[in-house]
């Protein structure tokens, strides 16, 4: 993968809800294969930023350029809905905090993983099923659960299934919105481990939103700290967490419970 161009180049991006700005003046570059964590307290605009970058929310001002697999540079705000959906089907993934938002809860696990394949034109049942089975194995879901719907799965399994569904079409960029909150600590650790190894194997670029600094520490290369809709600090994760510069970041880091 060439790294001459950033995958995502964001300049002065902002999204406004009515009279209020959800986030504003965001500048960032995301490089292929890079994991970027966005941290901040709730209400700081993290999820709004993620929604804006992934075109789930409209861009009120600024530009977002995406360098597509074919090599062309796309100005996301100018794309038509069908083109955005095509990106969603083939190049992007989105892992929701609540797996029920990202899965079809009453469709079998195999069907959930197979759906993105079928949406991109796969029409061979045997191949779809074999690929789904491979992915379930990769995310450590037992092969005999392939025909069970996610309503029968535990929280951790649902989240892993959601990850499989997102990665099955080999995306280049995955957005994750608090993927580990709501899971207990040991399941969180396993899930993060899984995400980390998949990201390394597949060379994915990931933007992960989290309020948990430990998550950022574990899997991200770089970290953005947000407060009141603005980025207050950014840098290598270790630098931001070990040597926070801004007063807010210092407060955030010092507020971690030491066990």
């Amino acid at each position: 993968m060439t790294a001459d161009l950033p995958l995502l180049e964001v300049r002065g991006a902002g999204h406004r809800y009515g009279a209020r700005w959800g986030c504003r003046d965001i500048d960032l570059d995301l490089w292929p294969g890079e994991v970027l964590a966005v941290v901040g307290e709730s209400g700081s605009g993290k999820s709004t930023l993620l929604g804006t970058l992934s075109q789930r929310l409209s861009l009120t001002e600024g530009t977002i350029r995406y360098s597509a697999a074919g090599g062309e540079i796309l100005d996301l705000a100018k794309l038509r809905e069908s083109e955005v959906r095509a990106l969603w089907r083939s190049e992007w993934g989105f892992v929701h905090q609540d797996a029920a938002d990202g899965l079809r809860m009453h469709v079998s696990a195999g069907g959930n993983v197979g759906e993105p394949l079928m949406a991109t034109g796969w029409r061979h049942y045997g191949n779809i099923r074999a690929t789904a089975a491979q992915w379930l194995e990769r995310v450590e879901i037992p092969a005999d659960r392939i025909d069970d719907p996610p309503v029968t799965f535990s929280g951790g399994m649902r989240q892993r299934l959601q990850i499989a569904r997102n990665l099955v079409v080999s995306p280049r960029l995955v957005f994750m919105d608090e993927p580990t909150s709501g899971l207990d600590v040991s399941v969180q650790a396993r899930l993060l481990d899984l995400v980390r190894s998949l990201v390394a194997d597949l060379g994915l670029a990931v933007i992960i939103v989290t309020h948990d600094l430990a998550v950022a520490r574990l899997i991200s290369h770089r970290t953005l700290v947000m407060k009141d809709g603005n980025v207050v600090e950014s840098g290598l994760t270790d630098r931001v967490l070990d040597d926070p510069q801004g007063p807010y970041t210092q407060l955030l880091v010092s507020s971690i419970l030491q066990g």
Partner: protein
Amino acid sequence: MSTDLTGYNIAYLDEQTKRMLRRALLKAVAIPGFQVPFASREVPMPRGWGTGGVQVTAAIIGTGDTLKVIDQGADDTTNAVSIRQFFAAVAHASTTTRTSEATVIQTRHRIPETPLTEGQTIVYQVPMPEPLRFLEPRETETRRLHALADYGLMYVKLYEDIARYGHIAQTYSYPVMVAGRYLMSPSPIPSFDNPKMHQSPALQLFGAGREKRIYAIPPYTDVESLGFEDYPFEPQTFDDPCAICGSTGVYLDEVITDDKGGSMFVCSDTDHCEHAAGQAEVTR
């Protein structure tokens, strides 16, 4: 425009309503398989009994037309008889039970066995026009999926069938792709009838009264039943011939003959059955 039924216009609906329906029909024919919204009116029967079909028929029927109405293939069931009598009274149309003599055929859940010809129009009564409804309940979202031709979801349903039953278990209302563009529900006809829609010389119109949608397949249009490469679409088949007329390769209904579990399988298309039985009589 009054008729001898005082107070009623020809074909029951007023001219403005028919004009509205015809506009929707023209649009539907121009975009094969696309669901056109229309202002569904009340007709003298309950919704769910074929009000969509009746409105479409009322919009296209003229005094020179010959109407056939079938309900599950039969010309002699209550619904078929009353709709036929209705149009005989309000449209002065001649009626028939012979498929080959009809110019307009209104149908619930079957396509006649006798192949349709150029110049004939078949009007389907549709209870549920949206093929994606049970997969995606939001109408705003299904409309968007149609607009973007984003039909991966429909294949999920077929996938689930194969995973669960080993074959595609849908035997009626089997989804079709019209002219390579729009996914369409063929109304609850048996999948046995699906191949008859492909490249049919007749004009096919679909009316859903309760759901307020009209759609159409113009003559000689490609209609492809969905399937996987390794699990292609397979219409239903029957092993035994009709117990009355001996026809094979036709759609059969089970008829209970006594209260001891006895039953027989006979043609669902009564016109075809009578005709075939008559011919068998002649050759004997």
